[in-house]
Structures are given as structure tokens and as C-alpha cells.
């Protein structure tokens, strides 16, 4: 039998009470750290750990000979976490950044307001100068709540190809919200190659989880970096651009508005893409300078330097369009080498309109191309539209339009550059609307045949047409990147041959012969004949409502084994043979031989400032 320790039973209350007391103390403590004190809540986000973003290095871009077109330079942003700035030596910081107290407070306030937050990091000062960075780094321990974030900015060794390269800027709020790859303040390609190859160029951001102490000093990596991710650099791009040719073209185009596009016909690779006036791409890379420069470029409504003419300016093609007409008509069996049409300084059926110039009477097919006879191609256009195969001329017109569009005009070519325009080849319903259902016929719209009226093309499309003629019937979609990444991958859409509507090889031969004759005596571009290279060309003089005609010149060379196909357009420069043809032939020399044999032509072109109306030597056009 056990003793009943009745006098000890009271002790159960002490024990139970002790247990309850301890647990109540714990409950109070829990209430304090979980509900009352929010320091742990904040700490869980940021205090002891800092998620330091390691920005990926953007991919380099090389030209076709391996020369660097763009690389990166380190740049440093000063970041702020407003909540942690207690004890910061504000005065010293303001001194280093050369700002006053009001400005400091303004920025802190901005960093606290939506979408920023006092707990989260945001940019306090973008792209510090090297000197500021050096001084700041020395004293950063005094600036609680501030740290320096390393990024990179683009740097262009040569101030060329601004439109082609495009530029990089801060991602828009909407984009950052939609795409989790980007955080506000991140950079993204905004135009040009930077935009279309953004995914390849950007790489992948890395995250370092750093442990910081109460003094905002980084004391190490969390778990020695077990959870860190390394930044993966962007892929390099191997461009088809020839930097020397691009630079030379830009020099020649100085003082002129217009565009030049050169394509390698056998591959569709873009060799140069020039839009003038241009600007130094280096002025659009760094923070403060960027906004100033951008505003200045944007404000220049006279020259619109930000406008990429090569892809987006829709020009009437003018006489160069006769090449396509000649091909279609031959293909349809309507004309041949011997076909001659009269020319009475104009197109007789319409009372001498469109007008023509003095090239000495009616010509055969080859001669009509060389001399660019307007009357001849008015007949040709009428022949195509009114051919017997199509009782209704509208079907004939549609046939012509389809054939034209198979060369590229009127559609977006699908190049690897953003924002290209389709141009315009008017449709039959369009004319029904303008003239009424029965209010038009072939002669009403006969100026389409000579590349005028509503017809427009962008320079890239013009270059593509020449490349197609050089290839005698097919083209590769023009592209400016020939390899992505170290393995130089090329998208298969750029390896696919596109056959146009005309496959009659003899037709091409005759047209090419005509183009060659354009640089022979009696041809429109005779003055630009080269001694050692057989160039095939076609001048165009595009009438437009903006003043003097645009000078257009299409060419490829050499004749037998075409290496380069050109479209050049100089705005309001008058006759195509005067300005565009010299520029193109100079560039052909540069590309095929490395230099020109005609320094006096080079000098004349380079010194001409057509924008400001000096040194204008326009020959008349009838």
C-alpha cells in the first residue's frame, strides 16, 4: 500500500500553474514578435539577406569580317533601400553626387512611392561616372541603405549603323508587369537588331544571396552561394554587315537624306543598311546623355534622324520599276528582244503623257531599259493589263499586281529587323473606289508602269528586287544576322529560296543586258561606268509631292557572278544618274576592290550637302 501524500496534492496546482505561466509568457512573446513588432517581417524580405542581381552581359555583335560592331562597358547605378537609410551620411553623399538636400529628399520620396517601395531597392542615380563611382565605393559604408549595382552599357567602337543596331533602353512598365524576365529599370532592346534579337542578346540574370550585417555591410554569401545563380551571358551575334562598307556609305551619304541597302544576292545577307541622316549610336547609351540626345534627335523634324528610311520610308520607285514590267511582259510572251514601241517625248495614246526625255526615237527592249523610256513601258504596262488572256482588264491588272508582289513589293519581307513597312501596290478595289467601278482602264493608271502613282516601295524591297534579278528569279529573305551564338545558328526561314512569278531565264538575260547598257554610251548612267567591273544598273527618278524628284539607282555587280546588289535613294536630288549612281558605283568599288579609282567622284559626292542646297548639279529631266 502506498501512502496517500494528501498534504502534497496542493503541489499539482503549483506545477500546473507553473506550466501555464511559462506558456503564457511564450504566448505574449509570440504575440510580440509576430503581431506587434514588424522588424522580423521586414527582415524576412531584405534585412539579413540582400538579393543582389548580377546582370548578364549583353551579347556582342560582330560584322561579317569579325570586326566588333558593339560591345559592353561596365556602368554603375547607385541603388537605395529607403527603409535602411537610417544613419546615412546624407551630407557627404549629396556632395559626392553634386546634388542638394531638396533633390536628395525628392529622390528618396520617389523611391518610396509606388511602384517603388521603402523596403525594396530602386535606382537613386543612374550610370555613375567613373570618378563618382570610385569616390562612392570608398565611402559606401557610410551610406546606409545605399549600394552600387553593376550593369553594363553598350559601346560602339565605330559611330556607324545606328539605325541597324537600334538601341537599348529601360523596359516599359507594362512589359515589366507582363514578362517576369524583366524588372522595372532593366534594359531591353528597343529598336533595330537590339530589339529583334533581344531574347538571344539578353542572356539570363543571376542572383546572389548576400548576408548583410546591421551596418549594411556584406558579410558573406548565404550558404556559401549554394542558392546563387550565375548570370548567363547573352549570345554573340555574327552580322552579315560589312562595317567598312557601312562606314563608307554613311560618309558618302553625309549631307543627304536617303537610304542605301546592299544585299548579297546568293545568300540574302544584308551587307549594309544605311539611313541618312544618322547619328552616333554612342550618344544613346548612357542615362543622362541618352535623354538629352534623344530629345534633340526627336525634335529634328526637318531631317528626322531617328527615322529608319531603309526599312520604313515608302518611296515611289520610279523608273527602276520598268525592270519588273519588262520581266512580266516577256514572261507572258507579249514582248521580246525585237519589240519596238514609238516614243514622241511621251506616250502617244494619252496625248504624250507620261512624258519622256530625249533619247532618240523608238527603241528595242534592251535599249528601252538602258535609256529608260517612259513611253515604252506605258505600252508594256498596257499590254500586260489588256492582254487577250484576260477578257476583263481587271483580271489583267490583278495578274500584273500578283506578279509584282511576288518580287516583294506590297508585302513585308519578313526580315530580321523590326518595324519594316510593306510599301503599297494598289488593288483593283482601290481604283474602283477612286474612279468608280467602270471609271478606269489600263491607260488611266498607266503611270504605275513607270513606277509612279500610288506605287511605293521601301529601299529594302528595292534592293531585294535587284537581288532577285541578279539571281534570275529567286531571293532569300534579306537578313542582317548570319549566325546566332557560338554555333552560328541561322534560322531556317533565311535558308529558304523564294521563287518569284517570272522564271523565264531569257527574260532575265535581256533585262540584265539592258541594265548593263545603262552604264554604256547612250545609257542613263553612262557617266558612272567602271573600267574593271561590269555593273548592271537602272536609274530612277521618282516624282514625289515633297519637292524635287528622288534620285534612285539600283545596281548589282559584277554582271556574271553577282556579289552585291544595291538600292540607293537620295531624296529630292533630282535625276538618279547624278547622285545615286555615283554613290552606288563608289560603294561597289569599295566592296569589290577595297578602294575607288575615281577620287574626284568620291570627293564630289562627299562634299555635296544636298540638304542645305549647296553644290547642286542637277541635270534636267524632261
Amino acid at each position, binding site marked *: *500500500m*502506498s*501512502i*496517500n*501524500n494528501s498534504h*502534497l*496534492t496542493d*503541489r*499539482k496546482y*503549483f*506545477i*500546473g500553474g507553473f*506550466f*501555464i505561466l*511559462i*506558456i503564457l*509568457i*511564450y*504566448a505574449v*512573446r*509570440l*504575440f510580440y*514578435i*509576430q*503581431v506587434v*513588432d514588424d*522588424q*522580423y*517581417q521586414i*527582415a*524576412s*524580405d531584405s*534585412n*539579413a*539577406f540582400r538579393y543582389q542581381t548580377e546582370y548578364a552581359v549583353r551579347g556582342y555583335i560582330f560584322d561579317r569580317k569579325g570586326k566588333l560592331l558593339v560591345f559592353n562597358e561596365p556602368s554603375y547605378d547607385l541603388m537605395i533601400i529607403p527603409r535602411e537609410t537610417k544613419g546615412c551620411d546624407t551630407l557627404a553623399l549629396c556632395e559626392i553626387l553634386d546634388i542638394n538636400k531638396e533633390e536628395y529628399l525628392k529622390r528618396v520620396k520617389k523611391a518610396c512611392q509606388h511602384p517603388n517601395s521603402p523596403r525594396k531597392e530602386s535606382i537613386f542615380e543612374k550610370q555613375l561616372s567613373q570618378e563618382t563611382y570610385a569616390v562612392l565605393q570608398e565611402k559606401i559604408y557610410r551610406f546606409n541603405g545605399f549600394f552600387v549595382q553593376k550593369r553594363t552599357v553598350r559601346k560602339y567602337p565605330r559611330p556607324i549603323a545606328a539605325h541597324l543596331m537600334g538601341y537599348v533602353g529601360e523596359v516599359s512598365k507594362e512589359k515589366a508587369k507582363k514578362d517576369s524576365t524583366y524588372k522595372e529599370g532593366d534594359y531591353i532592346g528597343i529598336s533595330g537588331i537590339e530589339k529583334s534579337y533581344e531574347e538571344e542578346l539578353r542572356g539570363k540574370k543571376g542572383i546572389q544571396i548576400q*548576408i548583410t*550585417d*546591421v551596418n549594411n555591410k556584406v*558579410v*558573406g554569401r*548565404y*550558404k556559401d552561394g549554394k*542558392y546563387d545563380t550565375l548570370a548567363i551571358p547573352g549570345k554573340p551575334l555574327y552580322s552579315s554587315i560589312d562595317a567598312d562598307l557601312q562606314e563608307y556609305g554613311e560618309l558618302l551619304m553625309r549631307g543627304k537624306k536617303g537610304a542605301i541597302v546592299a544585299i548579297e544576292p546568293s545568300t540574302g545577307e544584308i551587307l549594309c543598311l544605311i539611313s541618312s541622316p544618322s547619328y552616333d549610336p554612342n550618344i544613346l547609351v548612357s542615362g543622362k546623355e541618352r535623354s538629352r540626345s534623344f530629345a534633340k534627335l526627336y525634335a529634328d523634324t526637318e531631317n528626322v534622324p531617328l527615322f529608319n528610311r531603309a526599312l520604313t520610308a515608302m518611296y515611289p520607285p520610279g523608273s527602276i520599276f520598268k525592270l519588273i514590267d519588262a520581266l512580266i511582259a516577256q514572261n507572258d510572251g507579249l514582248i521580246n528582244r525585237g519589240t519596238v514601241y514609238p516614243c514622241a517625248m511621251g506616250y502617244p495614246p494619252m496625248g504624250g503623257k507620261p512624258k519622256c526625255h530625249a533619247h532618240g526615237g523608238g527603241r528595242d527592249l534592251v535599249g528601252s531599259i538602258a535609256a529608260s523610256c517612259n513611253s515604252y513601258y506605258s505600252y508594256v504596262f498596257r499590254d500586260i493589263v489588256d492582254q487577250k488572256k484576260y477578257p476583263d482588264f481587271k483580271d489583267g491588272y490583278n495578274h500584273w499586281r500578283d506578279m509584282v508582289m511576288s518580287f516583294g513589293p506590297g508585302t513585308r519581307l519578313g526580315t530580321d529587323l523590326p518595324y519594316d513597312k510593306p510599301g503599297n501596290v494598289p488593288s483593283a478595289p482601290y481604283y474602283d473606289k477612286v474612279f468608280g467601278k467602270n471609271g478606269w482602264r489600263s491607260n488611266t493608271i498607266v503611270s504605275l508602269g513607270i513606277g509612279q502613282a500610288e506605287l511605293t516601295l521601301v529601299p529594302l524591297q528595292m534592293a531585294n528586287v535587284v537581288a532577285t534579278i541578279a539571281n534570275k528569279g529567286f531571293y532569300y529573305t534579306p537578313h542582317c544576322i548570319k549566325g546566332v551564338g557560338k554555333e552560328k545558328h541561322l534560322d531556317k526561314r533565311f535558308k529558304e529560296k523564294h521563287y518569284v512569278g517570272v522564271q523565264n531565264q531569257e527574260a532575265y538575260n535581256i533585262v540584265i543586258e539592258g541594265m548593263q547598257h545603262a552604264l554604256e554610251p547612250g545609257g542613263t548612267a553612262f557617266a558612272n561606268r567602271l573600267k574593271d567591273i561590269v555593273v548592271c544598273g537602272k536609274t530612277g527618278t521618282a516624282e514625289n509631292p515633297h519637292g524635287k524628284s528622288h534620285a534612285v539607282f539600283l545596281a548589282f555587280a559584277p554582271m556574271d557572278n553577282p556579289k552585291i546588289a544595291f538600292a540607293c535613294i537620295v531624296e529630292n536630288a533630282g535625276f538618279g544618274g547624278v547622285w545615286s549612281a555615283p554613290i552606288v558605283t563608289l560603294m561597289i568599288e569599295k566592296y569589290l576592290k577595297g578602294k575607288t579609282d575615281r577620287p574626284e567622284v568620291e570627293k564630289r559626292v562627299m562634299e555635296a550637302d544636298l540638304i542645305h542646297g549647296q553644290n547642286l548639279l542637277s541635270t534636267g529631266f524632261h
Partner: protein
Amino acid sequence: MQSRNQNSLFYGVDRVSIMLYVVMVIMGWLNIYAAVYNDEHSNILDMTQKYGKQLIWISGAAILAFSILLIDSDFFTAFSYVFYGVLLFANILVRFIGREIKGSHSWLGVGGFGIQPAEFMKFAMSLALAKFLSNQQIAVNQIFRLRIKDIIKNYKNTFIALAIIIVPLILVKKLQDETGLAIVFIAFIIVLYREGLSVSFLMIGMLIAILFVVALVVANTSAVLISLGILALSSFIIVPRNRRNLLIVSLVYLLAAGVVLGANFMYQKLEPHQKDRIDVLLNKKTDLKGVGYNVNQAKIAIGSGGFLGKGYLQGTQTKYDFVPEQETDFIFCTVGEEWGFVGSIGVVFLELFLILRVIFLAERQRSSFSRIYGYGVASVLFFHLAVNIGMTIGLMPVIGIPLPFFSYGGSSLWSFTILLFIFIKLDANRLLILR
């Protein structure tokens, strides 16, 4: 007794305790899932993951519980000392045949599963203490006199009881290097107190503990000794100045000085990491990366839960492994972060309810064996609860002991299950047995 089902397994079994037990084990399992959750193995039954393994442990625990309910309660009373002896032996043996895990020699195991004999010492010790104390005419003496002869005579039983506790404690600490497992045995002091351990005895113990802490907090030992001396001298203002009192005061002073010097001596002898733990708790050191790291991260995880928590599986602190040992000793962090204040309080109160329920059941026992055993259960559970939660919220030093029924681990779950269900069985048979 009049029930037709008196032979049934659940006859007389306390349903409240069992319900609390089941609820806590399931909650524990869900929290282990949340603590070690990763996307690649999102199936809670995935046996390669700790939550899958825990299910095996839970199944084992269920089998253990049913088996205990099947066994006659006389078995436990009769074999109390045998259990104690066998486990004491196992705890010595483990040093030599056990495997070494992270520098401790406490594991016996096969394959991926291991068992810590020290965990099972708890119920054996409860049984042995219950057996020993229930057999005594006067269980533990409570009169306090300052005569060595009397002390030995009157406190013989007290010392034996203390020895039952302290011998395994030293063995586990010294042989297995398991401070956490060893220190739990101190909880049995509560049992001794209930059974009559004198308050003076406890007071002296407490005073020694306070002196100990003071000695550690105040770096200047001589200053402490001088202060104690002044305190001793000033005591003569109150007590009559005679030889006897002088002797007593001198003895007390020497004892106190001994404690102070001993504390410093022991502190010097501690391992560096143990020193650090004490320093951090006493605020002598703030090192958020090193030793303070665990505690700080635990506090951040729990504190960031707020009132209602971040939601199940939504805890960033626990998910990203910021908290170490978060599925075992720091499981409460997951509770705190994902279930917030409401969940934390819920869990703490569930544990407390079970402990109070056990005390309530213990007090209604007719046999002092069952009562003493019940207090053993309550004390062990409470010690675990208080130390485990206390360390996660920064009120206790970091001592690696599990939160009963919640923490991952087979040994602890099984040991708590055995501990509790033996008592439930004893309680179920309380009316049948009269000893």
C-alpha cells in the same frame, strides 16, 4: 467495470488524450511536408523524402500504440527496472556499436533508418522512478536540517531518486555527446517535487542556478566575489552576530564562491560552440551569421508569419532553407511562418492541453505508481515544449531537442508515443488495479 466492452481495446481509454495525440501527429506530418517541400517531389507519399519517411514512422507509432493498449498494465509495473536496466545498457553499448552522425554517438541503425536509445530512456526512467518512489514509505523527505548525518539518513531516498535521473544523464552526455537528449532528464525534478522534494532543496538549486548565470554574465569574477562578500557581511545587520551564524554565513559564502568559480571553470571547459550559444543567449555576443544565425533566422521566420501567417506551403523563409533543422528541432518555424500567430498559439495550446490533461489524469489515479508515471510523462512533454519553443523564439539557448509529435524523426515520435500510451493504458486500468 460494468461495461460489456471491458475487454475491448479501448475500454476506459482517455479519448481526449488520444484525440489530441492524433491531431498533433497529423499536423506535424503536414508541417514536415511544408518544411522540406520541393517541387520535384510534391507527392506527400514520396518515400525518398522526409515526409514520406515520416509516414512510415507514424505507421510504426500506431502499431506501437495499439500494442501497448493490448498489453496488461501489470507488465509495465513489473518490468520497470528491467526496462530501465536494458536501456541503460543500450545507452552504454551505443557508444561502441553505434554509428557516428555529426559527431554524436547516439544512433543505432539499419539502412536509412536510425534509432536513438537515449530517446527511449525517458519512458524507462519514468517507469523506474514510479516504481522506486511508489515503494517508499516516505517517498522524498522534505525536512531540511543542516546536519550531515541527518541529511544522509533523511535524504537517502532522495539521493537514490536523483541517481536514477543523473546516472543516465551523465552517460548520455559523456558517452554519446548528446547534450539535448541528456538535459531532458532534468525534467524529472518536477516529478520529485510533486512527490515531496523539499522546497528548500529546489530553492538552493535555483539559487545556485542564478549565481551560475550571474557568474557568466559578469565577466569580472573578482567583482562578483567581492559583491557576494559585502552581501554576506551585511547579512549580520539582520542576523545576530554569534559564532554559529558566522560559521553558517561563512559556509554559504564559500559555497557561493565555489559556484561562481565553478561556473567560470566549467565555462572555460565548454566547447567553443557551446560557449557561443550561451554568449548569444546572454546577449554577450550578437553574431547573426554564426551561432546567432539559427536563432535569428528562426525568429525571422516566425515573426514574418504575422497574425494569420503566409498560408500553407507559402513560407519563403522555411521553403528556401533559411532556417536550419527546420523539419526537426525548428519545425515550429514552419508553423509560425505559414500559420501565423493563430497557428503558433494553437499548436502551443494543443501541447499544453495534452500536458494538463495528463496531470489531470495522473491526479485521479489510485495507485501512486500511475500518478508518478503520469507526472513523468507531463514533465518530459513540458520540458520539450518549453525548451523547443523557447529556443525558436529566443528565450532559451539552442538545445537540440524535438517538439513532441511535430518534429521529424522516428525515435522521438516512437518514444513519445510509448511514453504517452503506457500512461493511457495505466489510466484505462486505474479502476482494476489497486496497489
